């Protein structure tokens, strides 16, 4: 154990190595590691964010599907309702048409009967007048008795 100048020399060497490490070795390593740590933290945060937004969009999709389903059901219900209405309306229209046609036919028939009755009356009148004429040919002057004949014709 003899202490000598080696001690001083070694201390200087030691100081130089410490200086070198402090200045050139430690900072770049620290920078690299800290940058990586930050990147990893950022990545994890982004993943978390992604997961969350996925969840949210999943919920939104669910909601949209639900809405669409409800709307579809609504539309179908409306369509059914309209269908029923249309059928009903068509029924009513058909019924009304039938009534009208029936009424028209009835009117026609009445008119026809009226007309037939009219004709019959005219023919009967003509027949009666013809018969009266035949009976009265000689004595009756057609002109003189025209008023009378017309009166008869009207009565018939």
């Amino acid at each position, binding site marked *: *154990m003899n202490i000598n100048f080696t001690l001083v020399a070694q201390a200087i060497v030691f100081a130089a190595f410490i200086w070198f490490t402090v200045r050139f070795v430690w900072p770049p*390593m620290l920078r690299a590691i800290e940058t990586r740590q930050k990147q990893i933290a950022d990545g994890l945060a982004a993943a978390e964010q992604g997961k969350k937004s996925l969840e949210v969009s999943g919920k939104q999709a669910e909601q949209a599907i639900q809405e669409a389903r409800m709307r579809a059901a609504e539309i179908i219900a409306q369509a059914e309702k309209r269908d029923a209405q249309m059928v009903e309306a068509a029924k009513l229209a058909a019924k009304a048409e039938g009534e009208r046609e029936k009424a028209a036919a009835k009117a026609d028939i009445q008119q026809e009967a009226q007309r037939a009755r009219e004709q019959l009356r005219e023919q009967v009148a003509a027949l009666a007048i013809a018969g009266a004429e035949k009976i009265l040919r000689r004595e009756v002057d057609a002109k003189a008795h025209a008023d009378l004949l017309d009166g008869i014709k009207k009565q018939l």
Partner: protein
Amino acid sequence: MAAGKELNPTEYIGHHLTHDAQPFLGDGGFWTLHVDSLAVSILLGFVGIGLIWWIVRGATSGVPNRRQAFIELLFSFVDNQAKGIFKHGDRNAFIAPAALTVFVWVLLMNAMDFLPVDIVALGTHHLSEHGFRIVPTADVNTTFALALSVWFLMLFFSVQAKGFGGWMHELFCSPFGGKLFPLNLLFNAIEYLSKPLSHSLRLYGNMYAGELIFLLLWTWAATGVVGILFASIFGLAWAIFHILIVVLQAYIFMMLTIVYFSMAHEHH
């Protein structure tokens, strides 16, 4: 047997425990340099810290390759120790990198103990005839250099953190209060004295003892076939155990460095 001539065990061990001491100024005395310790420690510092620097220079914040992953492992190991102990400011400014330097450097210097002395001596004998010790931490100058550097830095941080007045106050008034100031001073003086001593001598003692035990085993190996057999077995066992000691002592030295720096920042 390195020197080529017959040596008795005492001479053998003495030979291997002789530094390559060169007078630096005049005829030596204090002005002597242990060229072996200095050269090996500088070389190891360049290898260890240079390697880390070379890898760190190309460090990416993306996916690290194996080289970088290894250095990052080392980095986080040291950083975690510093983080756990030093809570008085930015450890990245000085304490953590200093701890990394200490750990890497001391570990490599300790690891020189694994190299078989006689085979290394075949090469180092061309450099120096009077001995070349390749374990710088088995040289008390190296361990004291490190411990005293840490000690002076500790004083510096103490004054920096508390001011000179605050530090003086602490020296006289802690831990027993102002009335017992002589006792406090004595107490603190012993503490300040024991820190570098225990710090350096623990490392020195472990490494020196490890070296010595290897040398004793190799003198046994020189006695014959049985000696070679047993020396090999015990040498292997001691080398394996020494792996623990080498790493543990480097770790302890680093931890004490951090602890002393941390204590310097604490207010009492």
